[in-house]
């Protein structure tokens, strides 16, 4: 299956706070991806949009919105919503249609505009909505969840605030020359440690911002790529969008409690481990084959969790990898060579596609100023609200 679908084009609108409509960003990214692929918009037979995200819930229907903005061309249309995994689920829809022979050339677009500050629920009282109740009853913000995970690394594995700060230092260095990154400034560990504590043990600079941004991918059948003369396009080896396995025993944002393990016992894998496992299984390769990883560093500490969830080291050893420089560009397994969410801030429906864009550039050897040498296999990972998560494996 991995031979049959190719990434022919990728494009982004730079991340930032630009104050424009998500449609503007999405069309910019779409046109960049089409130009990169050398495919005219009129030849696209399927467009899939990542729905915008409003505090965990779906916002504006996007597929048809982008199609209209690009100029109706009669393509089939779909829209996906999967919180932080929205982009990957949209990609999966396009891939499945191509594999089924129902599409030859598909355009996948994710874009959003985000508000400043803490992500807070929409107005109005919703006594049956955990995303509303967690604020009302507990004052439980997103950073507070990230902080719970960070604290476990400290108490269980001996992580320090200095380790977390070094993740930020590394990602800031990686993103320094990335033209699509919002924050392009070198930082020291002291800068991170001197920033205000938001939720102990996490400082402001440990936590990712929210941004405007857009990313787009042109996905085609291998046959179409050949006809266009693409010699060695990047291939989609796997798209994992699995759900958790009951009982989900890791406290998950925005919930107030986990599911009970008292009767049935904990599952074989946590949700995040399961997301990566399914991607490896589908591609028929393992973590030892990965040249690089783009993971969802909503916080610095969460990047360390992901490194273990992806099987890049054993549980509790991510700090050792970081300290040895293994996760830096030039190291054994560079993590977030794009600069990650640390340099981008989160633009939810675009983020999983931005990860795919970065891995594509890395595998093509086009990641100027941040290139991972001899990159052949790249894996992405993210997790969002309400049982959504994804991992995409790309190969040369």
């Amino acid at each position: 299956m991995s031979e049959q679908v190719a990434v022919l084009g990728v494009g982004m609108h730079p991340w930032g706070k630009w104050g424009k409509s998500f449609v503007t960003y999405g069309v910019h990214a779409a046109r960049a991806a089409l130009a990169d692929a050398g495919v005219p918009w009129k030849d696209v037979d399927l467009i899939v949009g990542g729905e915008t995200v409003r505090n965990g819930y779906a916002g504006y229907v996007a597929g048809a919105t982008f199609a209209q903005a690009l100029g109706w061309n009669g393509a089939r249309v779909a829209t996906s919503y999967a919180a932080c995994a929205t982009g990957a689920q949209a990609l999966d829809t396009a891939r499945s249609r191509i594999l089924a022979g129902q599409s030859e050339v598909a355009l996948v677009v994710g874009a959003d505009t985000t508000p400043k500050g803490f992500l807070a629920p929409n107005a109005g009282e919703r006594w049956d909505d955990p995303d509303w109740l967690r604020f009302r009853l507990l004052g439980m913000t997103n950073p507070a969840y990230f902080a719970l995970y960070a604290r476990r690394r400290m108490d269980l594995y001996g992580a320090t605030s200095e380790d977390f700060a070094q993740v930020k230092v590394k990602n800031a260095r990686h993103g320094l020359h990335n033209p699509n990154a919002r924050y392009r400034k070198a930082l020291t560990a002291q800068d991170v440690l001197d920033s205000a504590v938001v939720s102990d043990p996490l400082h402001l600079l440990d936590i990712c911002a929210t941004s405007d941004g857009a990313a787009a991918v042109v996905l085609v059948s291998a046959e179409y790529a050949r006809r266009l003369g693409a010699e060695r396009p990047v291939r989609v080896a796997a798209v994992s969008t699995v759900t958790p396995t009951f009982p989900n025993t890791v406290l998950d944002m925005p919930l107030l409690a986990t599911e009970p393990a008292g009767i049935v016992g904990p599952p074989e894998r946590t949700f995040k481990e399961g997301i990566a496992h399914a991607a490896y299984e589908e591609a028929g390769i393992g973590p030892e084959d990965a040249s690089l990883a783009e993971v969802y560093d909503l916080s610095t500490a969460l990047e360390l969790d992901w490194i273990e969830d992806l099987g890049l080291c054993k549980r509790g050893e991510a700090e050792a990898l970081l300290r040895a420089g293994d996760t830096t560009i030039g190291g054994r397994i560079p993590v977030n060579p794009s600069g990650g969410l640390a340099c981008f801030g989160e633009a939810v429906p675009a983020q999983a596609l931005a990860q795919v864009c970065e891995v594509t550039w890395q595998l093509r050897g086009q990641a100027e100023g941040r290139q991972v040498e001899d990159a052949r296999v790249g894996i992405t990972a993210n997790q969002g609200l309400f049982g959504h998560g994804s991992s995409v494996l790309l190969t040369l």
Partner: protein
Amino acid sequence: MSVSPAIDGWFTTGPEPALIGSQCSSCGCVFFPRTEGFCRNPVCDGESFEDVELSRRGRVWSYTDAQYQPPPPYIAGDEWEPFALAAVELPEGLVVLGQVAEGYGVGDLHIGQEAELVVETLYTDDDGERTIWRWKPVVEMGEEADQ
């Protein structure tokens, strides 16, 4: 002024307060917050639940605090006071979030320590004091003197 829970039916009050969960009549799984309709255990087709009081004590799974005022719908008092939060694993095998009892901060907590459920005032509105469950670290005999 009257005193009433900030949310109905989630916990009992009195000298030994407890969270109220739903136990599936078929498989025995215990859920919190309360649930109805269908059991979420994938191998169970149960559709009836009984209210059960959850264990009042558990072990701290993790903890943090809020050093900035959370946005609405959180109802903040006139003077902003940072507060701690803890996730506590109960013998039933589920982890339940809560604020930490007044007077305790992250410095008083560590993973694995025992915590006990208490009920305290979350905010005061026109109807009076509105209460919520909180986790209070259990301090062993003698430990208090060491601090």
